[in-house]
């Protein structure tokens, strides 16, 4: 197992390098194929009415006048060793991991991402707990009570949940529970360390909206998985051995049905940790999702690279954890 984990971690590093190279290439090479030159790219970072002198100066300041391989090399070096940056009155040092300085604000990217991370972590993990518990529970009950009113009702609600986008449920919930009936007024992010109760209260609406979508999916997935496993011969054997029904359901039925759920949970959580873009935009929560939107809108390469690598890291680690959990859930899996 340890060898497996170490191998996967090395593969993670390699994968992140590939992701960064692809992102770099997309940012620079594709526009060049369309005819853009470095001067034009630098023009985007100067205010209105850019003079030639201003464009050349910003080109030099942002390092755009260096060959691409030099720029990429400096970027990789910054992540590992840190980098020095001209802040005007002094030369600032950006310690590793240094994802460079924003083309727009000329501030280091990593601290900005770190400050946005708690918002996304709070949003993603809180919603994940809610959707996992509620979705799996409802799925189990529906499977065990197949064909009953509960089953039909819950699956219908699940269908609605899967169909309604977050920007719809989010705006409706804000309209009703924040503006019209101020049960959750002024939804803003309050750090957990500042006020845990306010932190939780302000996240209730985003959690519920985000988890509604996923819970619906997990309920249907769990129901399907449970229906399949509960009809297996070994379940009949377990019952005939006189095992308590609770043991039959959870130890034998659910455990076998969990594998696809764990797989998809890893992917979903990993993706959300990279930024729940639509939820953050809808609720004006400044997490990594909103950071990503601004970075793309501003054509800010260092920010785009930083958030892309961070999101890729989360996805890869989430998948690693999922693979490890396979061995826990299924004794036949060995590394």
């Amino acid at each position, binding site marked *: 197992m340890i060898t497996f984990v170490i191998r996967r971690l090395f593969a993670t590093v390699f994968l992140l390098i590939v992701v960064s190279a692809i992102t770099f290439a997309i940012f620079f090479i594709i*526009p060049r194929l369309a*005819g*853009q030159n470095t*001067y*034009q*790219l630098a*023009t*985007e*970072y*100067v*205010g*209105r*009415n*850019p*003079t*030639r*002198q*201003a*464009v050349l*100066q*910003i080109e*030099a*300041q942002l390092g755009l006048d260096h060959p691409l391989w030099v720029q990429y090399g400096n970027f990789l070096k910054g992540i590992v060793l840190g980098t020095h940056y*001209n*802040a*005007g*009155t*002094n030369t*600032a040092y950006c310690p590793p991991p240094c994802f460079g300085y924003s083309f*727009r*604000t*000329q*501030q280091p990217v990593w601290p*900005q991402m770190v*400050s946005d991370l708690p918002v996304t972590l709070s949003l993603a993990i809180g919603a994940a707990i809610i959707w996992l518990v509620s979705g799996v529970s409802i799925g189990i009950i529906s499977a065990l009570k197949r064909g009953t009113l509960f089953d039909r009702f819950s699956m219908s609600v699940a269908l609605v949940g899967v169909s309604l986008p977050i920007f719809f449920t989010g*705006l409706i919930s*804000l*309209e009703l529970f*924040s*503006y019209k009936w*101020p049960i959750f*007024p*002024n939804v*803003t992010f309050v750090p957990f360390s500042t006020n845990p109760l306010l932190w939780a209260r302000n996240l209730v609406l985003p959690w519920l909206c985000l988890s509604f979508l996923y819970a619906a999916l997990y309920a249907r997935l769990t129901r399907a998985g449970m229906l399949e496993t509960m009809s297996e011969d070994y379940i009949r054997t377990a019952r005939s051995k006189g095992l308590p029904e609770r043991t039959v359901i959870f130890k034998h039925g659910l455990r076998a049905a969990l594998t696809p759920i764990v797989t998809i949970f890893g992917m979903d959580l990993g993706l959300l940790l990279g930024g729940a873009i639509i939820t953050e*935009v*809808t*609720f*004006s929560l*400044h997490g990594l999702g*909103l950071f990503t939107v*601004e970075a793309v*809108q*501003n*054509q800010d390469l260092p920010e785009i690279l930083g958030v892309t690598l961070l999101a890729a890291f989360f996805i890869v680690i989430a998948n690693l954890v999922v693979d490890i959990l396979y061995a826990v859930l299924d004794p036949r899996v060995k590394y």
Partner: protein
Amino acid sequence: MTRRRTFGVAAFAAAAALVLGACSSSSSSSSSGTPTSSPGTTGFNAAVTNVINPSTAKGGTINFGNSSAPDSTDPGNTYYAYMWNFTRLYVMPLMTYKSCPGSCGLQVVPDLATAPGVVSDNGLTWTYHIQPDVKFEDGTVVTTADVKYAVERTFDRGLFPLGPAYFTFLLGGNAATYPGPYKDRAKNLMGLTAIDTPNTTTIVFHLAKPFADFNYVAAIPQTAPVPPAKDTGANYQLHPISTGPYMFQSYQLNKELVLVPNPNWQASTDPNASQLASKITMTMNMNANDIDNRLLAGDLQVDAAGTGVQAAARSRILSTPSLKAQSDDPLAGFTWFAALNTTLAPLNNAHCRMAIEYAASKTNYQDAYGGPIGGAIASTVAPPNTVGYKPFDLYDATTDPNGNIAKAKQELAACGQPNGFTTGITYRSDRPKEVAAAEALQASLAQVGIKTTLHGFPTSTYDGDFAGVPKYEAQHDIGISFYGWAADWPDGWGFFFYIVDGTAISPAGNTNLAQLNDPVVNNLLTKMAATTDDATRNSYTSQIDMQVMKDAAILPGVYAKSLLYRGPTLTNVYVQPYYGMYNYAVLGLKS
């Protein structure tokens, strides 16, 4: 000037002769900057010409919501209209705009300076004296060396690329090659020879050539003093050293800014600002619709961007009398237009461009921007608030707003294209109103045989990579480019130079999208810059406007309007016509 990243000059209804130096407003500023008004004034558009809820009550927190983040909070590095308004809360440039509603608010008046600049040496020298007792937030007295340094640092365009570049080409001496104080640190930091500071309260600007509008340039936040010892370069935006009524308490970049009263600000030195609220916050990157809902719910007091509510809130406000009474719909100072490429065949023939002027449905253009609430049909390029503006209508925009097919076809025949022609239209694809306007124009032109292909591009790359690149336009047959502009200052030169002067055409980031290089227009702008007599100078505004329209280089769409909602708890609320939004420097809260 582009809508989003620009400086806005707003007008007010029924603007007549907007002459610099004439104050027609009844609002007289007290030493605290609190204007007066008829008590009980209220209602729709009341804040365009009146002060709503005049009060000297202190206390409370004014919460601003912002749908994006400032380009920069460094006064030397910002070009957003609302930031030039907002920075008056924490800095004092040499000059500013008088805090009063109506045409009065278009006057440029001394702020840090004691009087407007004294001109000498055939217009090449401008001398200002500053108030001797203005202090920074730490109690240090401001000197002219701080003002000189503030201007000098903006020459480092690598670190401060976002603000205007006027000083780099207006100033003489070594301005053309001066690299900025950071690269000049081996010397004495005061290496820009174009500015002298003979004593601590006198500053002298030496220009490369006469420029009669220099008082306006002195009103740009770049002249707000910066103490060299406390300058942190690229990090100065995190805590600019205040000379205004408020100072930075905290700033989480792109998230939240908190201002608290500056204990070393004196009301007697700054009559155009007030220190009433106990705290001012700006929350950034909020959902625009969320801002509107919070404004209506009272959780926020001001929409910082000042460009009006979104469509959903607009419907609600206009259909609810009590909400409508709390709103204003001033002219925002922008003209939304389509530039017609004067270098691309067949549009290089003026008659083909005139065909477009006649064929376009101005009604549909206005509808695309939200109907009369969103803008008034434009027949000139300059909006009515521009000093020297005169109305005229060469192509029946107001008399025949649905377009005149017959006249359009006559013009097509005159340019040798009786069956029409093909060309491309560019627009900013992330601006729904501009998308609708482009589609409307496409439909209008199709009626006369002008077949167009739509090309939408994101705002962030529109100027730098596409519409603002003349070579791209030529290579891709782009004859029509949607755009918008507002002046950096409210006279004809401030409005027209960057969009119609031949010398303003640049290979990338071009704003003269029509690529107009008419010697008549160029000459008028040159004469305007050099003429010190107000009446003569301002008369050139309408002459330039007329010539540009005779050239049919621009298809004016609408004079933009913004539906603003004023929170009922706010005091001293009025539209500052120069910014096109409420004056942020004088707001307070009801006790």
